[in-house]
């Protein structure tokens, strides 16, 4: 069985090793000198923009932020080395703690829900519906839109006091709350928004489901296994690599959620800090309070948290992910 994960790494291998072999015969066959140099030039030419981007846009700022995390950099003026002071301040920053709480709740609630939704829909679509391509696109659409400003604004309207949800509720005689403006529900609306963007994992699940050989199901059916058993004993084990892949990706994504919270709360993380995501608080410290040194330190804390979770995920995967071959 080829899983998507494996499939991915395998193609990566292909191109990695594949780049060399053609060169050897070519070198032997080539009579003109400098071919290799031409080729290298071409490669550099194509790689150049990407490499420039990596250095200037990713690696440079990354290193700069690590450096700034040990300073009192305030965006505009000079900065001074303060050692671990920023990291120490985090220990007593109650808003940081509440931001961590909000973010963890968000990650732990929305990711499993989203994956469950994605798997459920993928299984429905996998039954070979007519117009599958259309459904696939339709369900995938929210994934493309979900992180956008427009959808966040739409969300605000839909869950607002006079929004669509409350109008529907009013039709049934229920007086709804201002969902996005009440601290008990605001985070809930953002979780729903994230669950709604189940399209991307769904498409991956769908590909994974396609890879499960039908003969397993046939054999199980002959032995009298009912659909529930077939799901738990064939589908789930065979899908574990895909589930794992989606889990890792979605957890990383969820930790970095920013746009939705920023737009829905108007950048405040309100009401009552109930939607103060880690990244939003980081932004507030950095660009609202000019506390860029602290914000940089926060960014590295987030990196460590995400790194930690991903590492744990990989370690734990040994015990539940089944790679078939």
């Amino acid at each position, binding site marked *: 069985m080829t899983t998507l994960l494996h499939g991915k790494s395998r193609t990566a291998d292909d191109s990695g090793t*594949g780049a060399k*072999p*053609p060169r050897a*015969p*070519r070198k032997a066959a*080539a009579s003109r000198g400098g*071919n290799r140099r*031409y*080729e290298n*030039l*071409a*490669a*550099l*030419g*194509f790689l*150049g*923009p990407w490499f*420039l981007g990596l250095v200037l846009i990713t690696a440079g700022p990354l290193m700069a932020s690590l450096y700034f995390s040990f300073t009192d950099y*305030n*965006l*505009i*003026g000079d900065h001074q080395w303060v050692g671990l002071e920023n990291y120490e301040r985090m220990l007593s920053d109650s808003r940081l703690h509440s931001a961590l709480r909000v973010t963890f709740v968000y990650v732990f609630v929305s990711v499993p829900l989203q994956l469950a939704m994605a798997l459920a829909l993928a299984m429905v679509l996998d039954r070979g519906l007519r117009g599958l391509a259309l459904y696939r696109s339709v369900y995938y659409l929210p994934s493309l839109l979900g992180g956008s400003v427009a959808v966040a604004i739409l969300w605000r309207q839909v869950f*607002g*006091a006079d929004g669509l949800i409350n109008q529907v509720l009013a039709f049934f005689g229920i007086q709804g*709350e*201002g969902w*996005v*403006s*009440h*601290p008990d529900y605001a985070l809930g609306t953002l979780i729903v928004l994230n669950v709604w963007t189940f399209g991307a994992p769904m498409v991956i699940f769908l590909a994974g489901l396609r890879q499960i050989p039908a003969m397993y199901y046939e054999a199980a059916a002959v032995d009298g296994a009912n659909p529930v058993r077939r799901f738990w004993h064939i589908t789930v084990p065979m899908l574990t690599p895909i589930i794992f892949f989606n889990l890792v990706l979605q957890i990383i994504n969820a930790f970095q959620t920013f746009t939705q919270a920023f737009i829905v709360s*108007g*950048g*405040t993380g*309100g*009401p*009552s*800090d109930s939607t103060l995501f880690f990244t939003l608080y980081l932004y*507030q410290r950095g*660009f*609202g*309070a*000019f506390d*860029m040194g602290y914000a940089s330190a926060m960014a590295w804390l987030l990196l460590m948290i995400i790194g930690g979770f991903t590492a744990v995920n990989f370690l734990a995967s040994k015990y539940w992910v089944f790679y078939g071959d």
Partner: protein
Amino acid sequence: MNHHSGRALPQRRRRPLLVTTAAAFALVMAATACGGDSGSDDGVVELRFSWWGADDRHATMQEVIEVFEEQNPDIRIAGDYTDWGSYWDRLATSTAANDAPDILMQEERYLREYGQRGALADLSEFGDHLDLSALDPLVAETGELEGQTFGIPTGVNAYAVLADPQAFEEAGVEMPDDTTWTWDDYVEIANEISEATDGELVGVQSMAYNESGFQIFARQHGENLYAEDGTLAFSAETMTSWFEITSALLEGGGQPSAAESVEIEAGGPDQSVLSTNQGAMAHFWTNQLGGISESSGRDIELLRYPGETENERTGMYLKPAMFYSVSANSEHPEEAARFVDFMLNNEAAAELTLSDLGLPSNVDMREHILDDLPPADERSAAFLEEITGDIVDGNPPPPIGAGEVVEITKRTSDALGFGDLTPEEAAEQFMNEVSEATGSS
């Protein structure tokens, strides 16, 4: 693997083309990467001007810019505007990226922060280009810090209660006499309006979302928000009684529920209970009267703050509404100064902005527009004149970090509104957070 070697042959023949393509590609990438900022060759200087505000201000500013460009064909101004909330996020980000607008609007609570950090140009250095001689001496120096002038006040403002007489009439409640009304009257009237209209109209929009109102309250008690040295100048008791007023209104229904308030506040002045005809009173600056009157379609009136004659002294004050500032990084500071000069001293500009940026700080311009002000602006001019005699003193400039207090105030009000904090705890939290933000803890 075969397909690789299969493809390699024709590829090799086209190799020169390949290199050319790659080089061209790299060049295009590099060119587009650096192609952001192109100075025009025709001798026209382009400047960016940033302001915050509601829709009516954006329209006015565009008109002002057109007039300026007509009179100064060598300068083009690109307007760059947003609402109050996003303005500071955007300014901070663009300043950090060395891409601050050439000319920008500043406010008391942020001016020193930016000035001290070297983000603003010293406007006293433009002598010929920027004439400051007609500035009202009351506010002329409010944009100074350690001998440097980081902002020129646009106009004069007062924080007041805006009231919609039609809403009062609909509720069958009489408009208060604002020269004598007490804080108890205020709560009573607001609750009465909500009750009389069965919640159709709300008495007053929450006043807890702006610390300017508390500043008046503190002054009425012989205290203030900040002392000269930037430390807190009020007692926890005063702030507790301030929050108790809001609690009384929440209990009595005189103000919207906490969740509703969150939504109303997020909407800015355009979504205030007055603008949407859903309430009778709201707290705003006098220069916002014009815009709010327009969006409400009604003749909104200005009332003095409650309690002005109830306590030790009066608390209302005049404040420089906003400041014109020039970015320290502007490539064309002289042209930028010329635009500020135009905004400040040109009659056509004054005729367009009227009292939207506060009653003009240039006394000649104030005189010039006073006679043909539209009704709302006329009311705010008259109101300012009326209260000026009763104002005891001005405020010391807010400390650096005061900009953060905007958010702290919002957060505290939310927590109070949703019942997470008692008025006493709210006062304590506010004081702790503000001391920390302004470095006086």
